[in-house]
């Protein structure tokens, strides 16, 4: 598939994001093609979750642009950004289902808020979405009655409720056992292939990256250090990428005199 000829669905240009004085992301440039599974890979503190939160509009960048479907998400009126938001769904790390609503009501929430559909129609659509993620029959359960994997599936169903073009996953397999995690990876792939859905996945699990990723963007200390398919990444000789792919720990090194002094506070 020649990716270059297709117009990208997400374009990020010179993005800088900061918490107060602390710059968390700097000089981020990337594009996501329609219909691909794009993985944002990075260790803890690399800024990958911040990047995701900025992409969905939960955080505002200090500078730079985010184009979603050719619309600059960072400079839209609230009405226009609502239009863009309808094209996006997001699955949160902790699933973020509303605890006071049943699973079905959670999935129906965006439909009830944004459409004027009949309740019976919403009911059917909700069932279809839940069936899709393998949660048929769990409509009346409360989120607290579901297992971790089921919650994530329900989260995906809710993200799919408005039939988005892009779906964002924040650490989909975090905190799940390998079998459930593999099931979710498969679900992400199925969603992509069935609906030609663009997926942006933030993760640090190499196993799942190997299964789901079309292209991978590696973040290190708030900067992109490499973008490409896994094969391409393996060819790159950036030490961090190699270390990450090989799952090698940081070298502890020899404890130097300064560090020893700071621990023991002996001058």
């Amino acid at each position, binding site marked *: 598939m020649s990716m270059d000829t297709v117009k990208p669905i997400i374009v990020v240009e010179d993005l800088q994001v900061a918490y107060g004085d602390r710059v968390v992301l700097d000089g981020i440039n990337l594009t996501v093609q329609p219909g691909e599974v794009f993985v944002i890979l990075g260790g803890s503190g690399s800024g990958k979750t911040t990047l995701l*939160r900025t992409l*969905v*509009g*939960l955080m505002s960048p200090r500078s730079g642009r985010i184009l979603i479907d050719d619309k600059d998400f960072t400079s839209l009126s609230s009405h226009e950004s*609502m239009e863009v*938001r*309808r094209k*996006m*769904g*997001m699955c*949160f*790390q*902790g699933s*973020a*289902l*509303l*605890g006071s609503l049943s699973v079905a009501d959670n999935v129906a*929430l*965006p439909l009830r*808020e*944004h459409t004027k559909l009949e309740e019976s129609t919403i009911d059917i659509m909700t069932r279809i979405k839940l069936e899709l993620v393998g949660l048929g029959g769990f409509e009346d359960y409360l989120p607290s009655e579901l297992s971790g994997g089921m919650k994530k599936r329900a989260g995906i169903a*809710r993200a799919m409720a*408005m039939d988005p073009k892009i779906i964002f996953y924040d650490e989909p397999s975090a905190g799940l056992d390998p079998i459930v995690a593999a099931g979710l990876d498969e679900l992400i792939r199925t969603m992509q292939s069935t609906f030609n859905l663009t997926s942006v996945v933030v993760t640090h699990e190499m196993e799942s990256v190997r299964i789901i990723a079309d292209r991978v963007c590696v973040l290190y200390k708030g900067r992109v250090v490499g973008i490409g398919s896994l094969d391409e990444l393996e060819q790159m000789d950036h030490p961090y990428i190699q270390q990450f792919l090989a799952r090698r720990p940081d070298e502890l090194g020899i404890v130097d005199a300064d560090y020893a002094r700071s621990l023991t506070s002996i001058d």
Partner: protein
Amino acid sequence: MIELVGRVGRWALEQLKAALQVSVLMVDTMVWLVIAPFKGMGFRWRNSVESFVEFGVRSLPIVAMISFLIGVIIALQASYTLAQWGANRYIADLVAVSAMRELAPLMTAILIAGRCGSAITAEIGTMKVNEEIDALEVMGVNPIKYLVAPKFLAMVTAVPSVTALAMLVMIMGGWASSVFVVGVDTEIYVTQTVGAIVEKDLLTGMVKSVFFGIAICWVGVYRGFQVEGGAEGVGRQTTASVVTSIFLIIIVDLIFTVLFYYV
């Protein structure tokens, strides 16, 4: 010295920032409550009624009980002084006026702040910790519209409604101890009570309680959105919510009492 000035300055800036955030919250709530429903952007009436039941109806038993007991107590305390002048019949006046103007609105507000203001903070705080607020925003559902506006309407109607009942029960408490302990005649008590109350007493109490409701709701919501850092943060802000709203209730009370003193 410079350090002191710096600290005072930073503190002032922080307060200013908090005031700004509260103002934004207030404006947003009013927009979603007053303007949005008429522009077809919807209002969650059902949710508002549910909140009214929670804040108002479910608060009734405890508010009624405490109001009754306070009525009993004021009557007995009043008798302690009034009996010396043989003026026990004026217990009724004292109970009625203090209940209407001051004690019923204040007790109701403090109880609802403890019961419901804290619950609002805990609910919104937990939702924030669980990323549920973020989820709403990503879905394009405004959290102020979804969570705050219905609660706000429920609170500003529930507090005065419960207060009205508290006034009545407190006067009944006063009656009970006057008649059964002090030995005032029921007929005299009723006549004195009716004679003592003027329209303005009711108005004073009601106006106050509306503003108490506003204070409780906004403090609860503001503290909820302030929650950071998991369960511990929820606990901290929930405590802060009760303390702040009781403090604000007293301040609002003072302002209106002074205002009504001159008007």
